[in-house]
């Protein structure tokens, strides 16, 4: 059965009128009339019936406040012993398992110059730099590719710039591992618990099937303490606010020449190396 021009126009007119009467019409004529966002109760009003009284949540008043967290690693001060101390502290306090082989989990580790700064290859560079073991970790990029590719928003960027993982939401798709140009993320191919030498009971472990990485010790910043690596490295790793021109970190960056890992990729890493 064919539809002639007259019938088609009628049908189109009726459909348009019906469409206007629906949600689209409301949006067009009275924008915001259907938005429930403002009237939505907060999670606590939702879960607590009125008679439970008023409850509240707040950040810890002792927390460290920063607009944009970053770290400076001073390669002149970073001795192998200090690097080892930082790695051991991080591994112990975050229950990072030691799994032999390719399935190992890394939060912070060391790598040679050629792997850390592959584009700056130079056969006649200072051998002291060339042979040094650089300490590497998540760069907490300003423009993090891992966050862009995560399909569940399990990894996200906090307002203070820290790229965080929400293990509860991670589905283990490993897009973030493909997205990260620094290899900062590790996947739990198996239950990590048997591979943790000594469990630190105040911090959770991870389960099989999630990706994990350095969090700039978000749990320590929240109670007003510096990250473990910065604390034990004896001044070789300086943690601070990149946005605060008066911070110790910014003074170091002004005084000394610093380089960043793969800056040409546009990820804007926030870990700086003083060489």
């Amino acid at each position, binding site marked *: 059965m064919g539809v002639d021009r007259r019938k088609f126009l009628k049908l189109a007119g009726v459909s348009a009128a019906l469409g206007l009467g629906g949600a689209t019409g409301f949006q067009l004529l009275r924008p915001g009339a259907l938005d429930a966002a403002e009237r939505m109760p907060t*999670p606590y009003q939702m879960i607590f019936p009125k008679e*439970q009284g008023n409850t509240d949540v*707040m950040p*810890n008043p002792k927390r460290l406040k920063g607009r944009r967290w970053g770290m400076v690693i001073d390669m002149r001060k970073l001795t192998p012993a200090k690097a080892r101390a930082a790695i051991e502290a991080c591994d112990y306090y975050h229950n990072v398992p030691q799994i032999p082989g390719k399935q190992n989990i890394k939060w912070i580790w060391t790598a040679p110059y050629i792997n850390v700064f592959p584009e700056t290859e130079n056969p006649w560079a200072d051998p002291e730099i060339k042979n040094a073991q650089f300490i590497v970790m998540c760069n907490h990029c300003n423009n993090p590719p891992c966050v862009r590719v995560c399909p569940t928003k399990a990894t*996200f960027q906090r307002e203070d710039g820290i790229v965080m993982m*929400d293990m*509860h939401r991670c589905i283990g798709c490993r897009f973030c591992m493909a997205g990260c140009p620094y290899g900062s993320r590790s996947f739990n191919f198996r239950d990590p618990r048997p591979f943790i030498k000594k469990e630190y009971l*105040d911090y*959770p472990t991870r389960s099989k099937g999630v990706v994990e990485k350095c969090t700039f010790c978000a749990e320590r910043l929240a*109670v007003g303490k510096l990250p473990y690596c910065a604390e034990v490295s004896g001044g070789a790793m300086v943690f601070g606010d990149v946005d605060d021109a008066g911070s110790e970190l910014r003074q170091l960056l002004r005084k000394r020449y610093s380089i960043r890992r793969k800056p040409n990729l546009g990820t804007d890493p926030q870990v700086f190396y003083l060489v």
Partner: protein
Amino acid sequence: MYDSGKIITGLVIFLAIFTYPLWSNMGKAAPVPKPELPPKSVATQCVADTNYMRTSHMTLLNVWRDDVVRMGDRVYVSANGKAYNMSLTNTCLECHSDKVKFCDQCHNYLAVAPFCWDCHQVPKPKEKE
């Protein structure tokens, strides 16, 4: 009816097997769980009243989790004005120190297996002096 003997025997056997869980458990109701509350010397009240915690602790924990991980809000002020650090292992299990005698009682009775413990640590039960 052809082969009625075989068919009826078969049906009786089928019904006997099919209803086995019903009659084998007859009169053997599983005991009602009795989660053991922490002694009064440790704590006299929880972050919310008992009825609310009994029915909705899982909702509270989910909201706490989002507040802590995503918003960075780690302090919870309960209705009576007391402040708590929002942490499963370090706050909830601080008072309810024996998971087997508290959490597992109802969870096992209702056959629910929350996966909190895959990651969150269970403190070893404190030994009684």
